[in-house]
Protein backbone atom coordinates (compact mmCIF):
# COMPACT_ATOMS: atom_id res chain seq x y z
CA UNK A 1 0.00 0.00 0.00
CA UNK A 2 2.87 2.33 0.77
CA UNK A 3 4.36 1.44 -2.59
CA UNK A 4 1.12 2.36 -4.27
CA UNK A 5 1.03 5.66 -2.35
CA UNK A 6 4.41 6.45 -3.98
CA UNK A 7 2.85 5.89 -7.39
CA UNK A 8 3.54 2.22 -8.06
CA UNK A 9 0.32 1.09 -9.78
CA UNK A 10 1.39 -2.54 -9.99
CA UNK A 11 1.38 -2.60 -6.17
CA UNK A 12 -2.31 -1.76 -6.27
CA UNK A 13 -2.93 -4.58 -8.77
CA UNK A 14 -1.33 -6.99 -6.30
CA UNK A 15 -3.59 -5.67 -3.53
CA UNK A 16 -6.64 -6.21 -5.71
CA UNK A 17 -5.59 -9.75 -6.68
CA UNK A 18 -5.08 -10.63 -3.04
CA UNK A 19 -8.25 -9.09 -1.59
CA UNK A 20 -10.89 -9.13 -4.30
CA UNK A 21 -12.11 -12.59 -3.28
CA UNK A 22 -12.37 -11.58 0.38
CA UNK A 23 -14.20 -8.33 -0.35
CA UNK A 24 -16.62 -9.86 -2.87
CA UNK A 25 -17.52 -12.72 -0.55
CA UNK A 26 -18.13 -10.49 2.46
CA UNK A 27 -20.39 -8.34 0.29
CA UNK A 28 -22.06 -11.38 -1.30
CA UNK A 29 -22.82 -13.10 2.00
CA UNK A 30 -24.17 -9.85 3.34
CA UNK A 31 -26.19 -8.55 0.42
CA UNK A 32 -26.91 -11.99 -1.11
CA UNK A 33 -26.79 -10.74 -4.69
CA UNK A 34 -23.77 -11.47 -6.85
CA UNK A 35 -23.94 -8.42 -9.14
CA UNK A 36 -24.48 -6.04 -6.28
CA UNK A 37 -21.67 -7.69 -4.33
CA UNK A 38 -19.27 -7.05 -7.22
CA UNK A 39 -20.49 -3.48 -7.47
CA UNK A 40 -19.81 -2.99 -3.75
CA UNK A 41 -16.37 -4.55 -4.18
CA UNK A 42 -15.60 -2.12 -7.03
CA UNK A 43 -16.60 0.76 -4.75
CA UNK A 44 -14.34 -0.58 -1.98
CA UNK A 45 -11.34 -0.69 -4.29
CA UNK A 46 -12.10 2.79 -5.63
CA UNK A 47 -12.03 4.08 -2.07
CA UNK A 48 -8.76 2.29 -1.41
CA UNK A 49 -7.40 3.75 -4.66
CA UNK A 50 -8.43 7.29 -3.64
CA UNK A 51 -7.27 6.95 -0.03
CA UNK A 52 -3.75 5.71 -0.70
CA UNK A 53 -2.12 8.95 0.42
CA UNK A 54 -4.17 9.03 3.63
CA UNK A 55 -3.41 5.39 4.53
CA UNK A 56 -1.95 5.09 8.02
CA UNK A 57 0.79 2.44 7.96
CA UNK A 58 0.29 1.80 11.69
CA UNK A 59 -3.12 0.26 10.94
CA UNK A 60 -3.26 -3.31 9.63
CA UNK A 61 -4.23 -3.18 5.97
CA UNK A 62 -6.62 -6.14 6.17
CA UNK A 63 -8.49 -4.48 9.06
CA UNK A 64 -8.69 -1.27 7.06
CA UNK A 65 -10.12 -2.92 3.96
CA UNK A 66 -12.55 -4.96 6.07
CA UNK A 67 -13.73 -1.73 7.68
CA UNK A 68 -14.35 -0.06 4.32
CA UNK A 69 -16.21 -3.14 3.03
CA UNK A 70 -18.37 -3.38 6.14
CA UNK A 71 -19.26 0.31 6.06
CA UNK A 72 -20.28 0.24 2.41
CA UNK A 73 -22.34 -2.95 2.89
CA UNK A 74 -24.15 -1.59 5.96
CA UNK A 75 -24.81 1.78 4.32
CA UNK A 76 -26.04 0.12 1.14
CA UNK A 77 -28.50 -2.10 2.96
CA UNK A 78 -29.68 0.67 5.27
CA UNK A 79 -30.35 2.90 2.26
CA UNK A 80 -32.30 0.09 0.58
CA UNK A 81 -34.37 -0.56 3.71
CA UNK A 82 -35.11 3.14 4.09
CA UNK A 83 -36.29 3.41 0.50
CA UNK A 84 -38.26 0.18 0.44
CA UNK A 85 -40.18 0.24 3.69
CA UNK A 86 -42.32 2.59 5.67
CA UNK A 87 -41.68 0.74 8.82
CA UNK A 88 -42.60 1.32 12.42
CA UNK A 89 -39.60 -0.77 13.41
CA UNK A 90 -37.06 1.25 15.29
CA UNK A 91 -33.46 0.31 15.98
CA UNK A 92 -33.01 -1.22 19.36
CA UNK A 93 -29.88 -0.38 21.27
CA UNK A 94 -28.52 -3.35 23.10
CA UNK A 95 -25.07 -3.76 24.58
CA UNK A 96 -23.80 -0.75 22.65
CA UNK A 97 -24.87 -1.92 19.19
CA UNK A 98 -27.83 -1.30 16.98
CA UNK A 99 -30.21 -4.11 16.12
CA UNK A 100 -32.85 -3.60 13.48
CA UNK A 101 -35.62 -6.16 13.94
CA UNK A 102 -36.52 -8.15 10.86
CA UNK A 103 -40.13 -8.97 10.00
CA UNK A 104 -40.79 -12.71 9.64
CA UNK A 105 -40.96 -13.91 6.06
CA UNK A 106 -44.59 -14.96 5.38
CA UNK A 107 -43.45 -17.21 2.51
CA UNK A 108 -41.01 -19.16 4.72
CA UNK A 109 -41.74 -22.86 4.65
CA UNK A 110 -40.44 -25.03 7.45
CA UNK A 111 -37.81 -27.26 5.91
CA UNK A 112 -37.97 -31.02 5.98
CA UNK A 113 -35.28 -32.95 7.81
CA UNK A 114 -33.96 -34.88 4.80
CA UNK A 115 -32.70 -31.98 2.62
CA UNK A 116 -29.90 -32.45 0.16
CA UNK A 117 -26.80 -30.30 0.16
CA UNK A 118 -28.07 -27.77 -2.38
CA UNK A 119 -31.22 -27.23 -0.39
CA UNK A 120 -29.18 -26.94 2.80
CA UNK A 121 -26.99 -24.34 1.10
CA UNK A 122 -30.12 -22.31 0.37
CA UNK A 123 -31.45 -22.79 3.88
CA UNK A 124 -28.20 -21.53 5.42
CA UNK A 125 -28.16 -18.59 3.03
CA UNK A 126 -31.75 -17.70 3.92
CA UNK A 127 -31.13 -18.16 7.65
CA UNK A 128 -28.18 -15.76 7.56
CA UNK A 129 -30.16 -13.38 5.33
CA UNK A 130 -32.95 -13.26 7.89
CA UNK A 131 -30.65 -12.03 10.67
CA UNK A 132 -30.66 -8.34 11.66
CA UNK A 133 -27.91 -6.57 9.73
CA UNK A 134 -25.45 -6.14 12.60
CA UNK A 135 -25.82 -9.78 13.65
CA UNK A 136 -25.40 -10.81 10.01
CA UNK A 137 -22.18 -8.86 9.60
CA UNK A 138 -20.78 -10.22 12.89
CA UNK A 139 -21.52 -13.81 11.78
CA UNK A 140 -19.92 -13.25 8.37
CA UNK A 141 -16.77 -11.74 9.87
CA UNK A 142 -16.45 -14.39 12.57
CA UNK A 143 -17.53 -17.54 10.75
CA UNK A 144 -16.41 -16.93 7.16
CA UNK A 145 -13.49 -14.56 7.68
CA UNK A 146 -12.24 -16.16 10.90
CA UNK A 147 -11.76 -12.83 12.67
CA UNK A 148 -11.47 -12.49 16.44
CA UNK A 149 -13.96 -10.57 18.57
CA UNK A 150 -11.37 -7.83 18.97
CA UNK A 151 -10.87 -7.48 15.22
CA UNK A 152 -14.63 -7.49 14.63
CA UNK A 153 -15.11 -4.81 17.29
CA UNK A 154 -12.56 -2.61 15.52
CA UNK A 155 -14.18 -3.15 12.13
CA UNK A 156 -17.74 -2.61 13.37
CA UNK A 157 -16.71 0.20 15.72
CA UNK A 158 -18.24 -1.29 18.82
CA UNK A 159 -17.02 -2.94 22.02
CA UNK A 160 -16.01 -6.61 22.26
CA UNK A 161 -18.91 -7.19 24.67
CA UNK A 162 -21.26 -5.82 21.97
CA UNK A 163 -19.74 -8.30 19.49
CA UNK A 164 -20.21 -11.07 22.07
CA UNK A 165 -23.85 -10.06 22.49
CA UNK A 166 -24.44 -9.89 18.71
CA UNK A 167 -22.96 -13.35 18.13
CA UNK A 168 -24.86 -14.80 21.09
CA UNK A 169 -28.17 -13.64 19.63
CA UNK A 170 -27.19 -14.57 16.09
CA UNK A 171 -26.27 -18.12 17.06
CA UNK A 172 -29.52 -18.59 18.96
CA UNK A 173 -31.47 -17.30 15.95
CA UNK A 174 -29.58 -19.58 13.56
CA UNK A 175 -30.03 -22.57 15.88
CA UNK A 176 -33.78 -22.09 15.98
CA UNK A 177 -33.93 -21.82 12.14
CA UNK A 178 -31.55 -24.67 11.28
CA UNK A 179 -32.24 -27.05 14.17
CA UNK A 180 -34.25 -29.57 12.07
CA UNK A 181 -31.20 -30.01 9.82
CA UNK A 182 -28.72 -30.45 12.59
CA UNK A 183 -28.16 -34.08 13.55
CA UNK A 184 -29.46 -34.80 16.99
CA UNK A 185 -26.94 -36.30 19.35
Amino acid at each position, binding site marked *: MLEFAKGNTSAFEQIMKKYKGVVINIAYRFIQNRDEAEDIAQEVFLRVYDSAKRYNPKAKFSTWIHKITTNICLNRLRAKKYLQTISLDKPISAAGSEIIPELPDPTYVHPSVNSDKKELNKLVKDAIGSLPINQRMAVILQKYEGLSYLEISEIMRCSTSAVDSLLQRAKQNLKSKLAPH*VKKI
Partner: protein
Amino acid sequence: MRCKKVKEKLPAFLDNELDREKTSEIKQHLAKCSGCNQEFKMLARTWETLEVWKKIEPSENFEARFWQRVRERELRHPLFQRLLTKIILVPTTTIILVIGLLGGIYLGNIVYPKETKVSTDESLSLGKENFFYLDNFEDFPPESVGGVYIVLTSQKNDFR
Protein backbone atom coordinates in the same frame (compact mmCIF):
# COMPACT_ATOMS: atom_id res chain seq x y z
CA MET B 1 -21.41 -21.75 37.40
CA ARG B 2 -25.16 -21.70 36.86
CA CYS B 3 -26.75 -23.13 33.70
CA LYS B 4 -28.17 -19.76 32.61
CA LYS B 5 -24.75 -18.12 32.82
CA VAL B 6 -23.09 -21.07 31.06
CA LYS B 7 -25.57 -20.95 28.17
CA GLU B 8 -24.88 -17.23 27.74
CA LYS B 9 -21.18 -17.95 27.46
CA LEU B 10 -21.45 -20.95 25.13
CA PRO B 11 -21.14 -18.95 21.86
CA ALA B 12 -17.92 -17.27 23.07
CA PHE B 13 -16.70 -20.62 24.42
CA LEU B 14 -17.33 -22.16 21.00
CA ASP B 15 -15.25 -19.35 19.42
CA ASN B 16 -12.38 -19.77 21.96
CA GLU B 17 -12.87 -16.19 23.09
CA LEU B 18 -13.02 -16.80 26.85
CA ASP B 19 -10.11 -16.55 29.24
CA ARG B 20 -8.51 -19.70 30.67
CA GLU B 21 -10.42 -19.57 33.96
CA LYS B 22 -13.87 -19.25 32.39
CA THR B 23 -13.06 -21.88 29.77
CA SER B 24 -12.10 -24.31 32.51
CA GLU B 25 -15.28 -23.57 34.50
CA ILE B 26 -17.47 -24.16 31.46
CA LYS B 27 -15.69 -27.39 30.54
CA GLN B 28 -16.24 -28.67 34.08
CA HIS B 29 -19.91 -27.66 33.97
CA LEU B 30 -20.48 -29.32 30.57
CA ALA B 31 -18.93 -32.53 31.88
CA LYS B 32 -21.56 -32.65 34.64
CA CYS B 33 -24.65 -31.05 33.07
CA SER B 34 -26.28 -33.03 30.24
CA GLY B 35 -28.74 -30.20 29.43
CA CYS B 36 -26.00 -27.64 28.84
CA ASN B 37 -23.89 -30.24 27.08
CA GLN B 38 -26.76 -30.94 24.66
CA GLU B 39 -27.22 -27.19 24.11
CA PHE B 40 -23.52 -26.82 23.36
CA LYS B 41 -23.53 -29.66 20.85
CA MET B 42 -26.58 -28.25 19.06
CA LEU B 43 -24.87 -24.87 18.87
CA ALA B 44 -21.63 -26.37 17.57
CA ARG B 45 -23.44 -28.42 14.91
CA THR B 46 -25.47 -25.40 13.76
CA TRP B 47 -22.30 -23.38 13.48
CA GLU B 48 -20.68 -26.18 11.51
CA THR B 49 -23.69 -26.35 9.15
CA LEU B 50 -22.95 -22.79 8.01
CA GLU B 51 -19.88 -24.13 6.20
CA VAL B 52 -22.07 -25.65 3.45
CA TRP B 53 -22.53 -22.13 2.05
CA LYS B 54 -19.47 -21.94 -0.16
CA LYS B 55 -17.81 -18.77 -1.31
CA ILE B 56 -18.13 -17.44 -4.87
CA GLU B 57 -15.34 -16.68 -7.30
CA PRO B 58 -14.99 -13.12 -8.64
CA SER B 59 -16.02 -12.69 -12.26
CA GLU B 60 -13.20 -12.88 -14.80
CA ASN B 61 -13.50 -9.26 -15.91
CA PHE B 62 -13.68 -7.79 -12.37
CA GLU B 63 -10.28 -6.10 -12.56
CA ALA B 64 -10.79 -4.93 -16.13
CA ARG B 65 -14.09 -3.33 -15.13
CA PHE B 66 -12.41 -1.61 -12.18
CA TRP B 67 -9.70 -0.01 -14.32
CA GLN B 68 -12.34 1.02 -16.85
CA ARG B 69 -14.18 2.85 -14.05
CA VAL B 70 -10.97 4.56 -12.99
CA ARG B 71 -10.28 5.71 -16.57
CA GLU B 72 -13.86 6.95 -17.03
CA ARG B 73 -13.66 8.88 -13.81
CA GLU B 74 -10.39 10.52 -14.79
CA LEU B 75 -11.82 11.48 -18.17
CA ARG B 76 -14.82 13.08 -16.46
CA HIS B 77 -12.97 15.13 -13.89
CA PRO B 78 -9.75 16.68 -15.30
CA LEU B 79 -11.42 19.89 -16.60
CA PHE B 80 -13.09 20.38 -13.27
CA GLN B 81 -9.77 19.90 -11.54
CA ARG B 82 -8.08 22.45 -13.84
CA LEU B 83 -10.78 25.00 -13.15
CA LEU B 84 -10.54 24.33 -9.48
CA THR B 85 -6.79 24.95 -9.32
CA LYS B 86 -6.34 27.82 -11.77
CA ILE B 87 -9.48 29.88 -11.55
CA ILE B 88 -10.58 29.35 -8.01
CA LEU B 89 -7.62 28.34 -5.87
CA VAL B 90 -4.97 30.82 -7.12
CA PRO B 91 -7.11 33.99 -6.87
CA THR B 92 -8.58 32.80 -3.58
CA THR B 93 -5.11 32.29 -2.13
CA THR B 94 -4.01 35.73 -3.36
CA ILE B 95 -7.05 37.43 -1.86
CA ILE B 96 -6.49 35.71 1.47
CA LEU B 97 -2.84 36.85 1.53
CA VAL B 98 -3.77 40.46 0.71
CA ILE B 99 -6.48 40.51 3.36
CA GLY B 100 -4.03 39.10 5.83
CA LEU B 101 -1.47 41.79 5.02
CA LEU B 102 -3.97 44.65 5.24
CA GLY B 103 -5.39 43.24 8.42
CA GLY B 104 -1.94 43.09 9.91
CA ILE B 105 -1.25 46.72 9.03
CA TYR B 106 -4.59 47.80 10.49
CA LEU B 107 -4.03 45.93 13.73
CA GLY B 108 -0.52 47.31 13.94
CA ASN B 109 -1.89 50.85 13.78
CA ILE B 110 -4.27 50.11 16.62
CA VAL B 111 -1.70 48.55 18.88
CA TYR B 112 1.15 50.94 18.08
CA PRO B 113 -0.30 54.42 17.21
CA LYS B 114 1.90 57.11 15.44
CA GLU B 115 1.46 59.81 18.17
CA THR B 116 4.69 61.17 19.70
CA LYS B 117 5.02 60.75 23.44
CA VAL B 118 4.60 63.98 25.40
CA SER B 119 6.35 64.75 28.70
CA THR B 120 4.04 65.04 31.66
CA ASP B 121 6.25 67.52 33.48
CA GLU B 122 3.94 70.51 34.07
CA SER B 123 6.70 73.04 34.58
CA LEU B 124 7.87 72.51 31.04
CA SER B 125 4.45 72.34 29.53
CA LEU B 126 3.84 75.19 27.08
CA GLY B 127 0.64 73.81 25.61
CA LYS B 128 0.42 70.85 23.42
CA GLU B 129 0.77 72.53 20.05
CA ASN B 130 3.71 74.70 21.16
CA PHE B 131 5.48 71.78 22.72
CA PHE B 132 5.15 69.85 19.49
CA TYR B 133 6.89 72.65 17.69
CA LEU B 134 9.76 72.48 20.12
CA ASP B 135 10.01 68.74 19.74
CA ASN B 136 9.83 68.81 15.96
CA PHE B 137 12.35 71.64 15.59
CA GLU B 138 10.04 73.67 13.41
CA ASP B 139 9.94 77.49 13.44
CA PHE B 140 8.33 79.08 16.47
CA PRO B 141 4.93 80.46 15.72
CA PRO B 142 4.89 84.26 16.28
CA GLU B 143 2.46 84.10 19.19
CA SER B 144 4.56 81.58 21.16
CA VAL B 145 7.07 82.57 23.86
CA GLY B 146 9.89 81.38 21.67
CA GLY B 147 8.57 83.36 18.76
CA VAL B 148 8.31 86.59 20.82
CA TYR B 149 11.83 86.10 22.16
CA ILE B 150 13.21 85.78 18.69
CA VAL B 151 11.35 88.89 17.55
CA LEU B 152 12.61 90.87 20.53
CA THR B 153 16.19 89.80 20.12
CA SER B 154 16.12 90.59 16.47
CA GLN B 155 14.68 94.05 17.27
CA LYS B 156 17.43 94.63 19.87
CA ASN B 157 20.04 94.00 17.25
CA ASP B 158 18.32 96.47 14.94
CA PHE B 159 18.67 99.26 17.56
CA ARG B 160 22.41 99.06 17.74
